[in-house]
């Protein structure tokens, strides 16, 4: 391999791409980006093994700012796209990063199915309880009665509780962080990445431009770490914690070990001896034709 390639390889721990974040000054997402890059460094994931997949939203711009084999797809479809990346190349470290609208509104139908399949990937939801990119409409996590551009007379629906949903879906690692607590967040990302299975972190990441209710102050006043006595293997207890409304618990609600989807798929393939070259492929095809003769 040439020298130049060697150099590129050595530079692989420099994660920042040459696209500069275009977020508003003060946006919570900066804290998440910082924590994420720190976690990558700690995990020593090389950029050529990294794949960040996103949908559309302010938060979904994330993959442009980090070097990797990334996809910036369409609104709401990051999870199934990432699933494809993972099953086609289980070697890659796959991250899905996106917003509350991207995840729980238009993309809400995909989470249950990815969660129960348990592919080994990390999903980080940057929850600002608003639609940032489209300039301030109500989101599935906006508070009841919140006024936004599309709810001038107040939102009529109680917000969804992402942690409860993920527990109900069977996600095998469920945590919550806060964009301003980068130390804790970095550790949560590290743990989520080390977890073998579908790990989700809901990050409260305020939007100072459009959300005047869930502000940094609002969150800071309510945020509390999950008590260390909590047993994260007890799902019912995790539900109980998630149902608490006056506090915002951060930390790991739940974790469980079970087979990964790509592992299960590989088991099927290996029933048939996975070592296939062009020759054996042709032989097997001929054999299959026999069945239809």
């Amino acid at each position: 391999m040439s020298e130049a390639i060697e150099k590129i390889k050595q530079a692989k721990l420099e994660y920042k791409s040459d696209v500069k974040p275009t977020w508003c000054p003060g946006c919570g997402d900066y804290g998440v980006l910082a924590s994420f890059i720190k976690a990558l460094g700690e995990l020593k994931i090389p950029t050529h093994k990294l794949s960040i997949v996103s949908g559309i939203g302010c938060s979904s711009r994330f993959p442009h700012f980090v070097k990797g084999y990334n996809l910036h797809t369409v609104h709401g479809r990051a999870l199934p796209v990432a699933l494809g990346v993972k099953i086609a190349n289980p070697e890659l470290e796959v991250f899905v990063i996106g917003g509350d609208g991207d995840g729980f509104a238009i993309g809400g139908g995909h989470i249950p199915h990815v969660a129960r399949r348990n592919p080994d990937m990390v999903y980080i939801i940057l929850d600002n309880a608003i639609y940032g990119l489209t300039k301030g409409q109500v989101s599935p996590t906006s508070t009841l009665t919140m006024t936004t551009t599309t709810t001038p007379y107040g939102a009529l629906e109680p917000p969804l509780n992402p942690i409860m949903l993920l527990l109900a879906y069977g996600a095998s690692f469920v945590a919550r962080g806060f964009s301003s607590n980068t130390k804790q967040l970095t550790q949560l990302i590290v743990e989520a990445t080390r977890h073998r299975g579908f790990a989700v972190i809901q990050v409260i990441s305020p939007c100072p431009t459009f959300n005047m209710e869930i502000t940094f102050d609002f969150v800071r006043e309510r945020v509390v770490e999950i008590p260390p006595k909590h047993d994260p293997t007890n799902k019912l207890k995790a539900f109980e914690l998630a149902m608490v409304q006056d506090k915002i618990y951060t930390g790991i609600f739940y974790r469980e070990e079970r087979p990964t989807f790509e592992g299960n798929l590989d088991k099927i393939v290996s029933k048939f001896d996975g070592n296939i070259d062009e020759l054996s492929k042709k032989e097997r095809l001929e054999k299959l034709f026999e069945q239809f003769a």
Partner: protein
Amino acid sequence: MSENGNLKDVVVRIGGEGGEGVMSAGEILTYSAARSSYRVFTFRTFPAEIKGGLAMYQFRVSPYDIFSMGDKLHILMAFNQEAFDNYSSALAEDGVLFYDPAECKPLDNFTRKKYEVPLKELAMASGTHLAKNMVATGFLSAVLGIPIEESEKQIADKFRRKGEKLLQQNLNAFRSGVEYAQKYLDELKRFRLGKPEGKDKRVILSGNQAIGFGAIAAGCKVAVGYPITPASPILEFLARHLPKFGGKVIQNEDEISALATCVGASYAGAKVLTPTSGPGLALMTELITYASMAELPVVIVDVQRAGPSTGMPSKTEQTDLYHVVFGGPGEAPRIVVAPAHVSDCFYQTVKAFNLAEEYQMPVIILSDQVLAYQTEAIPKPNLESIEVVNRLEPDYESQNSYLRYKITETGLAPIAVPGHPGFEYIAPGLEHNERGAPNYTPKVHTEMQKKRFRKLDVLAEKLENENDDYYEVKGAKILIVAWGSTYGAVREAIEKAEMNGIKVSHYHPRILNPLPKRKIRNIIGNYEKVIVVEQNYNGQFANILRTFVDYNPIKLNNYGGIPFTSEEIYNKIIEVAK
């Protein structure tokens, strides 16, 4: 008719209530014939409901080469009154009706020959009224002269798992059908088939299966789908067989996610396929434009059914052409491939994968409900003759900074496969510069639109010089242009016309987008009359020709949900020739 007065080929339709075993009767007869080297061609419809409603299985069998499912029926086997009421008018002048007197009473004004076959009675005598269809199978085997042993072997295969008792009952029913036929055999001599021509190795495949085989041969590694009639059998075929070739198959939660997962897998380096039909295709629209924008190879099979909306899921139509060519907001290039018959399903699928890899965009295979379920005994595909194309990757040793979306003369630039250091890039849905970073300047958007569409120009230019889809008849003044599953009916209509002294050429393009415009203008320019045959209301391909080659052809359309007969096409030829 052949010299000895026997028919050259026989068209048989079995009709009955869904759930009465019409399909399995037809299948046994088909396989038995094909295994004995007969040419067979089948066509079926069933009600969209699971049980109940009228179901039919039609097959045409011949010792000689045939192209379609045939027109008028020589034989109708009616399990019940509804089958008689709906199908008896499809009988040829000299066709005959077989019917179960317990369930069906031919009307007084029915003029064809009719024969009672007490299906129910004989089935009951064999131990179960459920074996009506086996009585019919035996009876028809005897009448057609299809080897009995082949059918018995199949019945044994089919019922062994279900217990000895059921097997015996069904075998008995089959035999009683054979026996019952003896008394008519003399009278029905002309239906007995001659010995088949040639002995080339044949496989019996439906169009759906042939597409599955094509995908495997082309190197498909990930298939993701969501069940939908009439495309599910492709997913089911691959779910069973693709893992044998190291491939992974999953059923996703909907069609949007099915294409999404394919897109991700394609980015990661795999060849991918998703099968669907109209409603699912509609849902994929947004992601088709994304794959086109991010220049990712994906193969989508659209097995058309009769629409609009849920429409008639178990009926056929060629009505999605507009959508696959023009559908999708913005302007997103894609390639459209339409196989013409079962063996073509195999080869065109291989081609579709190759085109996707080469031109880095979505390729849509347009099949339809007839082709999907039509079973044909085709010569076994020759794997040696197949060329498999893989995506062009960058020189990973190169020191130049990698530009995934480099603006080139052909519009094409190498695709890096994840895992290679130094070649990280982002696949964007936003307009972007050569590196993939967002860029909205007029210059970049203009150049990128040109670049993406230039890839289609390159392909179109290649097609200008390929002529294997043009069946020229010297001296013909009439040209038929058709696409997809109408192929067989068109060919037979042309044969019939030829026998009646009218020469007709046939152009049957397999790639419907992009089109080789000069070539088409040249072809069309040679004829006095051009007829475009297609199964839709609007004349979609005819209209596309009007747009792209400024030619307004004669249209022959049919949109009732059942395929063209060669007679309909023949009649149009006669009309136009006048």
